[in-house]
């Protein structure tokens, strides 16, 4: 009898364990690497790439990016633009709820917007929506609980793309309870698929699935579509050291690395423990010149430097064969990257020497700034130094820490440097990133009044063909001036443990943990 009971209990326990197994599988926490601690959870305020990536799991804006970096409605159900291009009418989705269960209405959109445009908030994108640079929003109203109307001073092709920008925090809408009574930021209460559970400084940020998440349905793409969380918690672990992160991925101490080194791709792809997913990204790694430098102000010397480089081979070495050479500021995945943009001039040492002789260059040293913070920037400097030497160009490398390099970049205080730009998702923005009046913005490398006029024009027109023609013209102009040598737009490579399903890398590059789950039975 006793024996029988025992058997029964054992069987019952085994059954319980089995069912518990399936029920709790997704209770496991998914662990994702971030390479540095986040700065804050306040969208678009005191931020960096890691902060953006995590905040955008918790808050959503009116619009968001798709996988191809085009813009689609997110909290909005529809966006209507008036004929004159000055009025944007957003209809909110029905049944939207914040993570605390409260409904989201147009009043919340207005409240969030008012905090964004308050200069005291120090929102990253303030000047982009209330200034002359991109758009100037003159009025925002809420005619009813599910409608918000934005009025702009002038029409622009970039208004929605600006609202969606990751560094603007996606202009995410949050509930009043995100702030304390004094209006100080506490933590985001948003509509995203996750909510903040615990932030341990220097260690990790843990998010829990948002039980009140309302899915709009549709394909999961970029920051839009069905973003239903499939794991109960995600822990973003701060692991600054690349080698340690790699070891942790192999050992199973973490599940996802969203930004793998080019050098590790082959090894990761060969491992049966891991899955690799890669996609061309929209950044830019380039060699910059100060066109006001006493030596480099001579376009012939800049051109000679370009001709002395074997750029395809350089790019092959710098990216371990992961990215093609791209001599345009427009990134490879952009629909505007055509034949003209993809052309790569051939190396020509003789021609380079001829140009140098014409310019009267006699081996004066060119100070080249680089940093080891991004190893590829340092390596690019070393390769440039060696290749340019063959044409008789004398480069001296000065290695700085990232903050110092950025300081010299911002002040325009350099002769030449290797530099990397963050992603720009529209060609107008790509050109804007390098062009400007050096007296007003010393960080810009290309100061060509005609070019600036064309760039400005490209932001106001919506027609693809017209824009392409403008960008082609700009391409020819910037290539004649050689204020910089673009090298490649890069590749975003993600790696996950073999039992992680649904993780997808995309050109914007930030990890997205909704829709991602652990495979059953593994």
């Amino acid at each position: 009898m006793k024996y029988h009971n025992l058997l029964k209990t054992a069987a019952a326990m085994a059954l319980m364990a089995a069912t518990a197994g399936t029920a709790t599988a997704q209770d496991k926490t998914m662990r994702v690497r971030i390479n540095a601690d986040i700065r804050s959870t306040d969208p678009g305020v005191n931020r960096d790439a890691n902060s953006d990536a995590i905040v955008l799991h918790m808050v959503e804006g009116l619009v968001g990016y798709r996988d191809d970096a085009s813009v689609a409605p997110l909290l909005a159900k529809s966006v209507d633009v008036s004929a004159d291009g000055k009025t944007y009418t957003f209809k909110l989705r029905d049944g939207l709820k914040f993570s605390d269960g409260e409904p989201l209405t147009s009043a919340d959109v207005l409240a969030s917007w008012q905090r964004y445009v308050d200069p005291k908030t120090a929102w990253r994108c303030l000047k982009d929506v209330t200034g002359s640079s991109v758009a100037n929003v003159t009025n925002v109203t809420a005619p009813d609980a599910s409608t918000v109307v934005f009025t702009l001073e002038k029409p622009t092709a970039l208004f929605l793309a600006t609202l969606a920008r990751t560094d603007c925090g996606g202009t995410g809408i949050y509930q009043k309870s995100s702030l304390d009574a004094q209006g100080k930021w506490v933590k985001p209460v948003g509509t995203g698929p996750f909510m903040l559970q615990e932030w341990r400084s220097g260690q990790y940020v843990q998010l829990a699935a948002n039980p009140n998440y309302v899915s709009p349905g549709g394909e999961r793409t970029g920051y839009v579509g069905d973003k239903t969380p499939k794991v109960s918690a995600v822990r973003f672990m701060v692991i600054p050291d690349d080698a340690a992160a790699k070891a942790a991925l192999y050992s199973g101490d973490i599940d996802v690395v969203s930004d793998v080194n080019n050098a590790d791709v082959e090894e990761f792809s060969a491992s049966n423990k891991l899955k690799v997913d890669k996609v061309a990204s929209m950044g830019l790694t380039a060699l910059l010149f100060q066109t006001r430098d006493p030596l480099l102000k001579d376009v012939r010397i800049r051109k000679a430097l370009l001709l002395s480089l074997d750029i395809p081979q350089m790019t092959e070495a710098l990216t371990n064969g992961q990215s093609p050479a791209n001599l345009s500021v427009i990134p490879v995945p952009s629909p505007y990257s055509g034949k003209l943009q993809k052309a790569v001039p051939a190396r020509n040492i003789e021609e380079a020497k001829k140009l140098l002789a014409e310019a009267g260059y006699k081996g004066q040293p060119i100070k080249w700034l680089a940093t080891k913070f991004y190893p590829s920037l340092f390596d690019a400097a070393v390769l440039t130094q060696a290749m340019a030497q063959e044409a008789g160009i004398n480069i001296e490398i000065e290695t700085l820490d990232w903050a110092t390099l950025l300081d010299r970049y911002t002040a325009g205080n350099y002769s030449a440097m290797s530099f990397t730009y963050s992603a720009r998702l529209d060609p107008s923005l790509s050109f804007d990133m390098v062009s400007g009046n050096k007296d007003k913005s010393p960080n810009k490398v290309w100061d060509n009044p005609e070019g600036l006029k064309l760039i400005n024009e490209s932001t106001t027109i919506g027609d693809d063909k017209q824009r392409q023609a403008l960008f082609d013209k700009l391409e020819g102009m910037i290539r004649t001036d050689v204020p910089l040598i673009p090298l490649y737009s890069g590749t975003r490579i993600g790696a996950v443990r073999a039992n992680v399903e649904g993780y997808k890398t995309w050109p914007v590059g930030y990890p997205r943990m909704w829709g991602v789950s652990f495979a059953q039975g593994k």
Partner: protein
Amino acid sequence: MHALSKYVAKRLLWTLPTLLIVAVMVFFLVRMIPGDPAQLILGDSASPEELANLRANLGLDKPVPLQFLYWLGNVLRGDFGHSISNGASVLLLMLDRFQVSATIVLVAVALATLIAVPAGLIAAWRQNDHVDVAIVAASTLLMSVPSFWLGLVLLLVFGLKLGWLPVVGYVPFTEKPWTAITYVILPVVTLMLIEVGVLTRMMRASAIEILRLEYVMHARAKGLSERKVLLRHVLPNAFAPTWTMIGLVLGGLLGGIAVLETVFTLPGLGRLLVDAIFARDYPVVQGCLLFTALIYVIVNLIVDLCYPLFDPRVTAS
């Protein structure tokens, strides 16, 4: 006893100028390094107006000497300010991270001393025979391995290949003591191995010195066993320079184990400081340096106070 407390009081009083010099050096050195937090926050597309606004928001637009006096005034009232990076209280951040670093440094140096003292003593006693050569060679080897290499190799072997220990992460001792140990074994062992080399060599050198003095000869002549000669006469006298070295090592390590804390992903004070330097997080850099300086001074005060225990001759003065 009265003399001793007077001595301690006097020593503590003399630490004040040291700390003041550190404070001044820190403040002006950090601000002399180019780059500022506003640029790092705004990144590659910052416009001059945005930079100026953010700098004003962070209080970085005021003259540096004024900023210094303001900061010093706050510190004297116990307010170390808030981190520019994440707004956390600098004092709390430091105390939190200090526990992690202090545990690792103390345990590692204690273990290193326990190994180095006998090893150095034996090497000195058997000077120039094969035991000595082996000990010298081993300690030399340990001194020539950079900590980031040793750490990474141990991590790959014990964490990845053998899978005995976790590769990343940290759990405070107060939460799960046993799990916590598994996270700190590798960093402690790495640090211990690095320090054993230096301490062994120091111990060996001073022991050789003492072994040559007359009173050791006398002791031997009196017919004391070698064991007694070593333990009673050589060890106490030879330990003094090693003890100074331990003081130097202990004090210097707090700021110096940043590399190890990075390899092993530990939330320690060293990493906090180095990250803050690179992020130009001025309040954290200033706070941390002042804090480590204070710790350093206290450690060395304790070291000095302990001298009479090892070197009877110093008591006289």
